[in-house]
């Protein structure tokens, strides 16, 4: 029965797959832009742009909104750029320790903090509190763990990236200096 069911569903799927004509990616962009204009017209411009445009970097807009350790960490007020190192879902403790060690022993790195899934989730919920179905559709284990820290200069972000290059357990290295325009006067 299971095989028969699987085959029957598969046949239905193939038929739909061959018949569907996607609206196209351009329609996504116009749809999103139209919605953004509506938000702005509604007077919610700042929030909508922070959510729609800045995504993962939104927290930088909100001073004092970082994880607890980060607020407590030394030198966090020093001018510089925020960097996030996103860890793979199957990262091992050992890999984490090696990344942690590499970052800790880097003179360029300051205000280093480790962000758990739960902390990422709390941040996510606050940021997307205007989109409850988005929050409902997201699981805590879909959000990556991360190391977050700061560097003074763009060049130093590259130096640190080079240093951890051979290590494993992370899937992305993002510097705010490269993904978004500065949001606060430095």
């Amino acid at each position, binding site marked *: 029965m*299971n095989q028969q069911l699987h085959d029957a569903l598969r*046949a239905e799927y193939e*038929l739909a797959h061959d018949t*569907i004509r996607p609206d196209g990616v351009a329609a996504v962009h116009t749809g999103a832009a139209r919605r953004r204009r509506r938000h702005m017209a509604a007077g919610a411009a700042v929030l909508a742009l922070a959510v729609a445009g800045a995504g993962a970097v939104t927290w930088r807009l909100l001073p004092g909104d970082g994880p607890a350790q980060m607020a407590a960490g030394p030198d966090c007020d020093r001018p510089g750029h925020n960097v996030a190192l996103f860890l793979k879902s199957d990262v091992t403790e050992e890999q984490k320790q090696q990344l942690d060690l590499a970052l800790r022993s880097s003179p360029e790195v300051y205000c280093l903090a480790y962000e758990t899934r739960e902390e990422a989730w709390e941040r996510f919920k606050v940021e997307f509190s205007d*989109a409850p179905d988005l929050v409902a559709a997201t699981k805590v284990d879909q959000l990556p763990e991360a190391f977050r820290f700061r560097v003074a200069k763009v060049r130093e972000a590259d130096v640190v990236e080079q240093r951890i290059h051979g290590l494993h357990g992370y899937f992305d290295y993002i510097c705010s200096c490269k993904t978004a325009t500065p949001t606060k006067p430095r």
Partner: protein
Amino acid sequence: MRDAEGFAECYALQFRQIAAQLSVYLGDLDEARDLTQEAFVRAWQRWDRISRYEEPATWIRRVAWNLATSRLRRLRVALRHQRGARLELVPGPDEHGGHGVAIRDALAALPDGQRRAVVLHYLVGLPVAEIAELCRVREGTVRTWLYRARQSLAAMLDDFREAHR
């Protein structure tokens, strides 16, 4: 900057797949296409973040399915006023009762939860735990859905074969 190229690639690779899966659940191709498009719009609005997930497509599929479920809930309320009415089905290519029409009718006759569980489990390939999480029910409930759905589908498909012998 959101990575428009990466997004376009994800759209090209995943759109049909997500929409076709949804279409089997909904029994409505146009509806499935619209909901999937909407899910991609939402993904693009948060692409900075979502593109960094290991599988952005999983997120998009979840949003599309959640949209479909709330859409179906509204539709069911509307249908309560016209008993016997069924979801409009995609016209099949074979009017003489091929396999496709049989499974389509059988699926349409299932309660919503059972149909969702069957498609997610046997077509999309999600494990029971993940379906439970997606539908916000206990795993035992999903197992019951799958069991009942298999019983009804087996009976309906047998009847069908009997009738066309």
